[in-house]
């Protein structure tokens, strides 16, 4: 197990290193940030000073090592647009994204699991077919367009909900969150629904597949033969059995929700990290881009590592094969 663990950790480190080089070089290739930052009328002297200050006169490999050295000291650089440190910039935007992701995951679960269970319980019924058709729509219709339709319907035409931005922020226990105020909820509702649709489609399909499989399983037939009521079979036996794979896949999907938030946050002008990365790409804010991407790579590598280790824990065949 130790050998396996060390092997996996080394692999993860190599992946992070390679990806950080690719990201650094790739981002370096995008435009010249100096042209964006400096007023074209500025004197040559100011230009050169700034170039030196940001280290752009150095060769690329030295810039990379300076960056890595700073990262290990906890310094991700300064945003060229906001002129504050990237770390505090990202952390100031993170709560908004986490709020959005949390609410949307809750919506997807609360609607998706019962809908999927019903679709698997009565596969032939019209309601089940409607549920499945909706899940196909949730999968295939582009998120940003659904978001736009929501804005048109509920904000522009009906005027029930605000069309964008984060609402009033209140205090809940120790947290500053917009979920503590009614206005905050009004703002978070539409983006959260928009972000939840894809997850919901996935949830419905997973639950339905598990349900259909379970309905034909031995233990369900046995429970039926015992004369247990359907309600007890479904909620007592089947739900417990199908919940583990659903939770696993869902945990994995949490990371990708962060990525999908990029689209939703742009549509609803939600001030989270997704909006931050889009803005920094459009404004050529290199330090923010590089730091965000390296953080995302780190996040996904850690998720992968955790999955591998959990599987190894559960399945001795993987563990015993060693570090392959």
């Amino acid at each position, binding site marked *: 197990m130790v050998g396996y663990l060390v092997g996996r950790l080394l*692999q993860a480190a190599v*992946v992070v290193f390679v990806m950080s080089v690719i*990201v650094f070089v*790739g*981002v370096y*290739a*995008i435009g010249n940030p100096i042209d964006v930052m400096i007023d074209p009328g500025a004197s040559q002297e100011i230009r050169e000073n700034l170039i030196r200050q940001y280290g752009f006169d150095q060769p690329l490999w030295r810039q990379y090592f300076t960056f890595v050295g700073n990262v290990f000291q906890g310094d991700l650089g300064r945003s060229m647009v906001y002129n504050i440190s990237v770390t505090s910039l990202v952390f100031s935007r993170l709560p908004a994204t986490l709020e959005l992701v949390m609410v949307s995951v809750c919506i997807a679960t609360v609607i998706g699991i019962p809908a999927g269970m019903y679709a698997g319980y009565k596969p032939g019924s019209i309601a089940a077919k409607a549920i499945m058709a909706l899940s*196909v*729509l949730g*999968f*295939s*219709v*582009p*998120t*940003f*367009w659904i978001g*736009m*339709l929501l*804005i*048109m319907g509920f904000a*522009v035409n009906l005027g029930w909900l605000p*069309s964008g931005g984060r609402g009033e922020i209140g205090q809940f226990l120790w947290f500053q969150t917009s979920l503590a105020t009614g206005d905050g909820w009004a703002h978070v509702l539409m983006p959260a629904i928009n972000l939840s649709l894809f997850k919901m489609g996935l949830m419905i399909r997973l639950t339905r597949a598990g349900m259909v499989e379970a309905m034909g399983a031995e233990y369900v037939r046995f429970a039926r033969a015992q004369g247990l009521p359907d309600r007890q079979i479904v909620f007592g036996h089947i739900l417990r059995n199908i919940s583990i794979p659903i939770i696993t896949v869902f945990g*994995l999907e949490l*990371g*990708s929700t962060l*990525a*999908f938030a*990029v*689209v939703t946050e*742009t*549509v609803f002008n939600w001030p989270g990290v997704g909006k931050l990365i*889009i803005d920094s*790409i*459009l404004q050529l804010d290199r330090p923010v*881009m590089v730091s965000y*991407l390296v953080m*995302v790579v780190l996040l*996904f*590598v850690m*998720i*992968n590592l955790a999955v591998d280790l959990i599987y190894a824990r559960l399945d001795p065949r993987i563990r015993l094969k060693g570090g*392959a």
Partner: protein
Amino acid sequence: MADIGNLTGNPPSAPLETRALRLRNFWSDYRKSWIAVLALVVIIVMVVASFGAPWLVPQDPYDLAQLDWGDAFLQPGETGSGGYVHLLGTDNVGRDMLSAILYGLRTSFLIGISAGVLALTLGISIGLTAAYFGGRIEALLMRIVDLQLSMPAILLALVVAAMLGQGVGQIVLALVVAQYAYFARTTHGAASVERRKDYIEAARSTPLPTRRILFKHLLPNVLPPLIVVATVQVASAISLEATLSFLGVGLPLTEPSLGSLISNGFKYIHAGRSWLSIYPGVFLMITVVAINLVGDQVRTVIDPRNSR
């Protein structure tokens, strides 16, 4: 469509009658779902209308000389200075929306299909190489593919598109980077199973070159699941491209695509000019859903578990 018999999984060397027969069988299974048939018809109509756009619509929406600022923001159904009815209205520079949508649809199809074909080719090469040679090559390649699959395609495409800049070629490349892994995984999965079968062993014991075994013997037998993945990936490429253009890293409005049209229309939704973003979106949605429905039915038909 002519070689769809190929797609159902028989090797190309099979006699012609068999191929025609399989094609007929495939079709008779396929048409059991009227929704899938309708979806196929919709796709064909969309393809014909978008590629025939220059002959069908009254205006070349990207020829600035044909645009008249006086025609800006006409409601759907109004007649402009050109003397014809703008069925879907006009945009902020007086562009006929129907013309723009069909031209945009053509770009979306071109991008979706070329990204799909390139990603398929790359994915097949990587998947087959890994499955056939095994060992370290397999471990390395599949590790990369798995890592990529764990990241959302939209994020990869976004990053690559941001690095490469705007343009059709750049977008296609970004989509290929984001999507080839799905093909590689599917090919690898199917090919690892096929590889252990006797016919491959037999072929390997003859002096046939590796290339021939890979492409003439192994590939035809791993094609069926790939066809399904390819259909779904073309749809997702079209919708990814639209998303990227919407986010501002895809195509500029000077190069028509459904995404850039919707993105342009998005600026005016508060001004009560919803037709600018609704109509291109409707075309996008219909196209993507129709392709997915066709893919679903093809999956059902060629799945051996469903065969009679």
